[in-house]
């Protein structure tokens, strides 16, 4: 029998028992809807979390700190030779050391402020690395030849909620603690050349609470040639873990710690992938249940049509033909279920995402851990349309129908014609 006729016959058979067919198809629709809705929402969720995470990192920047964070933290410093050897590594574009100075106080006339960190940096290199995060509200980078210049972070410049600490070209006094015991302090006057806009929080720190002075000035004050942290920028974030290995190899074992943002992201991504797979497989179970429904209904259908099968066999229908006839019916159910279920699934995901985002807003969803330089967060979960998942769901739906339709179809094909003809 030709395929066209087989399909036409199957369609006719299904159409004849519309109510039963609809209910069976509904099972498949629910299964496919669940798979599509959960996978597209899961993907949206994954992207939302990933984007949120990425806002907290400069993905192409490795942060090299001395010692180990936990266990045997031996405070050491980096030399310029360390910096030079890092610069020679492959795939490293910029390496810049900084001094992290704490225990300082800032004074501008009678106004006072405090900074979490006074960072002595090479302005050109540092801004090259963090150009996205460090934007100016006022002023800009000073001429590198100038000493005693200062750039003030957004929050440092905010005093008493609304007031400002300093204006451009103000002379600001910074008092440094050179030694704790016996106490020795040193006050240096700086010219304000820039005030930063809000930078947003990164995983490491918030630059809003930092002020920046030239590295040379910092070294002069403390009479040192060493630095506390080295930032290394790589040309491709994907290979940053390899670069980190290369940097680690420059030092004796356990002497430094390197923060590799991409490994965080990868791990989170892996976890989210697992969650998505888990959710989708739960959805797949509902399709399995639909498959059992198909098997049930087809078995009943074969029994009801026993005589018809007998007639078909008597007039020369092959086993294969009978089998194809019944399988065609289950495939049609699977296809119909898929074609209805896919758009329903995406629609359902849209509705769920709206409900979810409202719920998150009500829960104060804007208190995310990280934010981008504009201070905004992407907490909204937008369902993602994926052609891949659509095809997988359709194929899986039809496959389930074929698998569960196989046994009844085979049973029909193997019926003994004489007994089938006698069946009342």
């Amino acid at each position, binding site marked *: *029998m*030709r395929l066209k*006729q087989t399909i036409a016959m199957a369609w*006719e*058979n299904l159409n*004849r028992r519309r109510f039963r067919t609809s209910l069976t198809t509904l099972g498949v629709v629910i299964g496919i809807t669940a798979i599509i809705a959960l996978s597209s929402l899961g993907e949206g969720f994954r992207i939302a979390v990933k984007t949120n995470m990425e806002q907290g990192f400069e993905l192409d920047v490795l942060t090299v700190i001395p010692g180990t964070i936990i266990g045997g933290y031996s405070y050491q410093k980096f030399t310029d030779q360390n910096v030079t050897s890092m610069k020679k590594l492959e795939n490293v574009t910029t390496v810049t050391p900084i001094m992290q100075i704490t225990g300082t106080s800032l004074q501008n006339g009678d106004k006072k402020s405090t900074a979490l960190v006074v960072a002595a940096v090479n302005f050109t290199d540092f801004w090259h690395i963090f150009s996205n995060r460090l934007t100016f509200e006022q002023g800009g980078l000073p001429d590198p030849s100038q000493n005693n210049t200062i750039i003030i972070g957004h929050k440092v410049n905010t005093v008493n909620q609304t007031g400002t600490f300093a204006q451009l070209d103000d002379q600001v006094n910074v008092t440094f603690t050179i030694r704790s015991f016996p106490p020795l302090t040193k006050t240096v006057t700086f010219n304000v050349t820039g005030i930063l806009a809000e930078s947003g929080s990164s995983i490491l720190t918030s630059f809003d609470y930092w002020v920046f002075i030239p590295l040379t000035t910092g070294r002069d004050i403390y009479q040192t040639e060493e630095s506390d942290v080295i930032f290394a920028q790589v040309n491709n974030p994907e290979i940053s873990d390899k670069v980190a290995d290369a940097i680690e190899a420059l030092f004796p074992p356990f002497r430094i710690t390197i923060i590799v943002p991409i490994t965080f992201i990868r791990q989170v991504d892996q976890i989210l992938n697992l969650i998505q797979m888990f959710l989708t497989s739960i959805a797949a179970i509902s399709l399995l249940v639909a498959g059992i429904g198909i098997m049930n209904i087809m078995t009943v259908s074969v029994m009801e049509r026993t*005589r*018809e099968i*007998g*007639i*078909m*066999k*008597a*007039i*020369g*229908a*092959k*086993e*294969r*033909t009978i089998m194809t006839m019944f399988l065609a019916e289950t495939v049609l159910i699977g296809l119909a279920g898929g074609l209805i279920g896919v758009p329903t699934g995406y629609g359902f995901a849209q509705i769920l995402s709206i409900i979810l985002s409202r719920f998150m807003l009500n829960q104060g969803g804007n208190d995310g851990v990280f934010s981008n330089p504009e201070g905004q967060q992407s907490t909204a979960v937008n369902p993602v349309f994926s052609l891949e998942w659509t095809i997988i769901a359709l194929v899986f739906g039809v496959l389930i129908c074929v698998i569960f339709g196989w046994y009844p179809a085979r049973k029909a094909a193997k019926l003994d*014609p*004489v007994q089938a*003809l006698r069946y009342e």
Partner: protein
Amino acid sequence: MRFVKTMTPILEVKGVKKAYRMGNVSVSALKGVSLTVDEGEFVAILGPSGSGKSTLLHVIGGLDRPDEGTVFIDGVDIFTLNSNQLADVRLHKIGFVFQFFNLLPRLSALKNMELPLTLADVGEKEVNEKAKKLLALVGLKERIDHRPSELSGGEQQRVAIARALINDPKIILADEPTGNLDTKTGWEIVELMRNLNAKKEQTFIIVTHDPNIAEQANRIIYVKDGVVEGIKEGANKK
């Protein structure tokens, strides 16, 4: 000049035995049946109910495999074939007519008739041509778009006969074709089959328990208790 032509057997049944299991008891339906039917013959198999005649017909038609013995149709030992090949024999060489018509209830009379052609992958054009010719031959022109339930018994049996003939089979096997019809209609159906036999030279084998109908055949084969009791020439002997 007919008798000069060498008669070739279209059907040869040799030592066919068939037993059924009914619970724990084995019931022998056929206890070694042998017979030969020539091409173009009109043969009646006559016997009381339970004599095994229907089983014999099923075995001849390749619907039921015998426990022992062979059946040759057109020179082919059909039970050496696999189930697909056997289905092809039923499709192309054999036409079945049943007591209860056995039309598919959801298909129109015309579609029922065309079903074997559909199974044989025949093109639409040829299907239409063949169907038209046969409709005239079996005397059905109207009501062909009706479903079986909307047709009379006689009409249904004509559709069934048309279905049996549509693939031009060598043998038409009819199992009590008049058993579910009133006497008048029954005779009409027998007449139709006899005419078709005469016109198309196809072999007809009819199973019946009605001696009057059997009398219309060229030959009557008496079956009782699973054996051939005797063979007699009918009123229309060749």
